């Protein structure tokens, strides 16, 4: 999801007392558990059952999992963090995947698409027949879920996410904060909910199990977004079950990317959805927190939507049938190897279609947005093959891009499998700001970092939003150059400049690798998860080379396609392709609030003089007077350079003489300080650490430099003078 699309007002999101208490509890639990755990000696865990399509991730519980569910904060240290073991794909040996130990290698087989799996292992597949009542704003539906127990444990309960219940009343976890909630910053002004009327499991007798379901989310009597359903009998590992549900959803006025506005509908997280089943038999379930997104198993979706006939419908997957019966339109969509399904409908949509990189791209947009539509298509034309080449080809036959009308702008800037929403006013392109392009490319990038690599967005939001922000930055810079954020005559601002500015401002407050609910505010989550992760990866790319970092991302993205990797899978990929130093820095930056600041101080120059004094030489004692200068005259110089913080990157240091000549030195940056000596014909005038500004994470770029005499800021003064003169001319009499 795009932060920009949420609007600036969101930045001051604060959690309410209740939410804050839960957040603090989660934060405390997570802070203890967030560091990549070193497994206990001798502990083992069997590898997960391999999927037919592709070997599963080798880790039973690959990460020090943040708490899922209400009971999780009480987990003991290390519980659930299991030993990280798995087969080394290159050698067949079992290695421990932990910091400092060599990771399981991914290898060059994932540098291209030859090893890509064709499809995901089906775990939870949905057949939904839904009818939308546009006057009551309700969806009446029946679902059939074909579910397989892919864990190694018998299941005695199921967990369902009823996300729409987040908007049921002002006491839900999502809405209870009196300071506003959610990424879109607003409170619900027309409530929505999801009522399950019946739930039965065919293979377990077919009785209605819903009356026996817990009435609320675990540990939270006011929330109904995370519901446990006890089963009458165990579902054994490998066993299939068929879950039948009858339910009715009432859409809210658009809040948090879902709901209605006028005749426009954006239905996201609109149906009862099984929580993701982890290999150890637990469900990754959680109440819908205002800072959280989602997590689910892959499957096949076949959805029939019955809507008013005049509506144009866009949805996840391919439209395989469309009929109009009287005043109703009935469209059927099918999607394979996805983990969610969203749809939109509006009688005002304009439509453009185009085949891009072999994918049928369909753009739905409001009238008057023709200019935006062209820019969005241009962005997709560039970014679809751009991402495909780097992270594995886009595997689906369709992509639907939805630009909601302005009055439904809160539906914009969101990703779903094969469907993304963008946003922005029709005149956005006239302002010189590339917001529409940026949102489009960001959401498209999520087709990989969320869609195809289905990380736990609740537990590790940086794995989708952060990696995707980096990917977005790459594409934006490649396509639009240095003016990727703002491009006006005489002024260009890159997205990287803005992200870095936000990233360093918040870098000392909290770690990046926290669950969504662990961030003290949405402002912090946005800054750390999006901007700081992007800036961390940008720093690695600038310091160690873009090519190895992209190779690491490419291997990670291809190897874990249709799977659910965690942070250490990603760190291991960086370790393999970029090196231990980069991976160690990455870990510290993600998990330990790692920061860095290079400082240059005490620049000094003196004329070189021959040493004076009393010298005992072979020819006897000699008294030499001090101060004789060598010919030609030489100057000695020195500057002290400090590295503050726990991150250390190798940097260049430029020593600049007063005639403008530059001597460049390399410093490993491992020590906390060093002094760099200089000898040359001219005195030192200045020194600067990291002159090419490769370390985007540097807390303060200006203290990297020091001069013998500060420079007069003539350029700024000149520009300010001219600006004020024009202002006086315009405002004066």
């Amino acid at each position, binding site marked *: 999801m795009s932060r920009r699309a949420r609007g600036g007002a969101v930045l001051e999101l604060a959690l309410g007392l209740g939410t804050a208490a839960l957040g603090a509890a989660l934060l405390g639990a997570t802070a203890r558990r967030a560091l990549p755990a070193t497994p206990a000696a001798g502990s083992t865990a069997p590898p997960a059952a391999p999927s037919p399509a592709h070997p599963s991730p080798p880790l039973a519980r690959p990460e020090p999992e943040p708490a899922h569910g209400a009971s999780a904060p009480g987990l003991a240290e290390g519980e659930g963090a299991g030993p990280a073991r798995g087969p080394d794909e290159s050698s067949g040996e079992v290695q421990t995947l932990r910091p400092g130990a060599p990771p399981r290698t991914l290898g060059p087989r994932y540098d291209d698409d030859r090893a890509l799996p064709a499809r995901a292992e089906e775990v939870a597949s949905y057949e939904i027949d839904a009818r939308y009542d546009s006057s009551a704003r309700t969806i009446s539906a029946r679902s059939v879920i074909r579910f397989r127990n892919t864990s190694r444990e018998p299941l005695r309960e199921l967990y369902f996410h009823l996300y729409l219940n987040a908007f049921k009343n002002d006491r839900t976890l999502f809405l209870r904060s009196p300071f506003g909630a959610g990424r879109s910053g607003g409170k619900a002004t027309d409530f929505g909910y999801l009522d399950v009327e019946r739930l039965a499991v065919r293979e377990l007798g077919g009785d209605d199990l819903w009356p026996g379901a817990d009435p609320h989310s675990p540990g939270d009597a006011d929330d109904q977004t995370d519901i446990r359903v006890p089963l009458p009998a165990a579902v054994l590992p490998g066993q299939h079950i068929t879950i039948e549900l009858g339910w009715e959803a009432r859409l809210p006025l658009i809040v948090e990317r879902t709901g209605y506005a006028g005749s426009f509908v954006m239905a996201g997280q609109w149906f009862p959805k099984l929580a993701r089943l982890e290999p150890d038999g637990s469900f990754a379930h959680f109440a819908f927190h205002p800072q959280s997104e989602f997590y689910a198993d892959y499957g096949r979706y076949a959805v029939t939507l019955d809507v008013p006939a005049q509506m144009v419908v866009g949805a996840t997957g391919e439209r395989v049938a469309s009929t109009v019966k009287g005043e109703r339109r009935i469209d059927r969509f099918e999607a394979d190897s996805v983990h969610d399904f969203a749809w939109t409908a509006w009688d*005002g949509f304009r439509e453009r279609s185009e085949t891009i990189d072999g994918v049928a791209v369909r753009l739905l947009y*409001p*009238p*008057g*947005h023709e200019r935006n539509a062209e820019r969005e298509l241009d962005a997709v034309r560039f970014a679809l093959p751009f991402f495909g080449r780097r992270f594995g080809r886009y595997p689906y036959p369709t992509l639907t891009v939805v630009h909601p*009308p*302005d*009055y439904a702008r809160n539906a914009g800037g969101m990703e779903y499998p094969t469907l993304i929403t963008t946003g922005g*006013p*029709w*005149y956005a392109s006239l302002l010189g700001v590339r917001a529409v392009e940026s949102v489009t490319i960001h959401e498209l990038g999520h087709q990989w970092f969320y869609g195809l690599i289905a990380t736990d967005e609740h537990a590790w939001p940086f794995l989708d939003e952060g990696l995707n922000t980096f990917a977005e930055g790459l594409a934006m810079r490649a396509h639009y150059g*240095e*003016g990727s954020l*703002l491009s006006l*005559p*005489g*002024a*260009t*601002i*890159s997205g*990287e*400049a803005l992200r*870095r*500015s936000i990233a*360093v401002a918040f870098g000392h407050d909290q770690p990046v690798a926290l669950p969504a609910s662990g961030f003290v505010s949405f402002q912090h989550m946005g800054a750390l998860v999006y901007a700081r992760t992007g800036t961390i990866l940008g720093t690695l790319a600038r310091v160690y080379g873009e090519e190895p970092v992209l190779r690491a991302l490419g291997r990670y993205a291809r190897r874990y396609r249709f799977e659910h990797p965690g942070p250490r899978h990603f760190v291991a990929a960086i370790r393999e392709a970029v090196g231990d130093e980069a991976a160690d820095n990455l870990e510290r930056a993600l998990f330990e609030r790692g920061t860095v600041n290079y400082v240059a101080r005490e620049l000094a120059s003196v004329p070189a003089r021959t040493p004076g004094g009393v010298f005992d030489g072979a020819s006897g004692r000699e008294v030499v007077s001090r101060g004789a200068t060598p010919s030609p005259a030489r100057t000695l110089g020195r500057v002290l350079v400090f590295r503050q913080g726990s991150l250390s990157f190798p940097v260049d240091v*430029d020593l600049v003489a007063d005639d*403008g000549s530059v001597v460049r030195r390399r410093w490993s940056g491992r020590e906390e300080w060093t002094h760099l000596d200089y000898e040359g014909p001219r005195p030192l*005038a*200045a*020194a*600067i650490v990291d*002159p090419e*500004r490769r370390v985007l994470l540097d807390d*303060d*770029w*200006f*203290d990297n*430099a*020091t*001069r013998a005499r500060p*420079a*007069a*800021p*003539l*350029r*700024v*003064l*000149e520009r*300010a*003078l*001219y600006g*004020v*003169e*024009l*202002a*006086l*001319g315009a*405002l*004066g*009499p």
Partner: protein
Amino acid sequence: MTPRARAAMLARRRPGVILFVWLFRALSAWLLAEPLTTALVSGGARQLPHGDAALFESGGLLLVEAVRLGQRALGRTLETSAWALLLFGALGLAPLALLLVALATEGKLRAAPTCARAVAHLPALAAVQGVGLLARALAAVAGALAAVAVASLASGRLDERAADLAALGPLALGAVAWLAVGVVVDLASAAAVRREASGRAALLVALRALRRRGFGVTVGWLMPALWSLAAILGGAIATGALHVEEPAGWRIAAVFAVHQAVVVALVALRAVWLAHALRATDPASD
């Protein structure tokens, strides 16, 4: 001091006064720009090997850094500067009076009597400007209110772009009204000086002149205004080509020269229009 003949009131005959007005504006601007500059570089840009050149690099990495590190100082300075800008704007009444007196006076100018006459006209000019300010505010508020009303009416009936463009109509009308008030104020200022009139009388003369010679007055205002826009645009293109982000000092000097030439041109073009306004409100035109 002898009043100039109507046809002789031309800007090109007073280059010295034009330069004086430019100098006044440049000095006023410097007093405001210096603290802004200090605030922006307070983060430490002066310590960079090439000073503030890096702030102008493409992509804006260090410009954004300067704003981040200097934001507190910048915030405080901008707050003060906004008031100072209004003050200096008001003080601009003095060079305006001087320019009008100079344009309206025959022969070689002598400092003391010219200044004395300019000072004598300040109350009338202030009254005219005050009325103008009020009228402009009304035009702005009326335009904005009308735009909101149109937007509300258009919402749901027209698509987003058409609705926004419809709302732009009243705003554009408000802008035209704003500019028209400016023309009337300038005509009235000219009349106040040329006819030694009070503020009220000068405004009546201005309205009469606009009614009688609307087309000529409009052209007389529009041409210098268009040339002013062209000068600003040309300056932007020229300075863009000078690449001030490069370390060479001559580039700063060249950009400074271009920008100041633009400001001199703007002052001269305003003088051209004011000379036209003096001729349009000259008693001989009645």
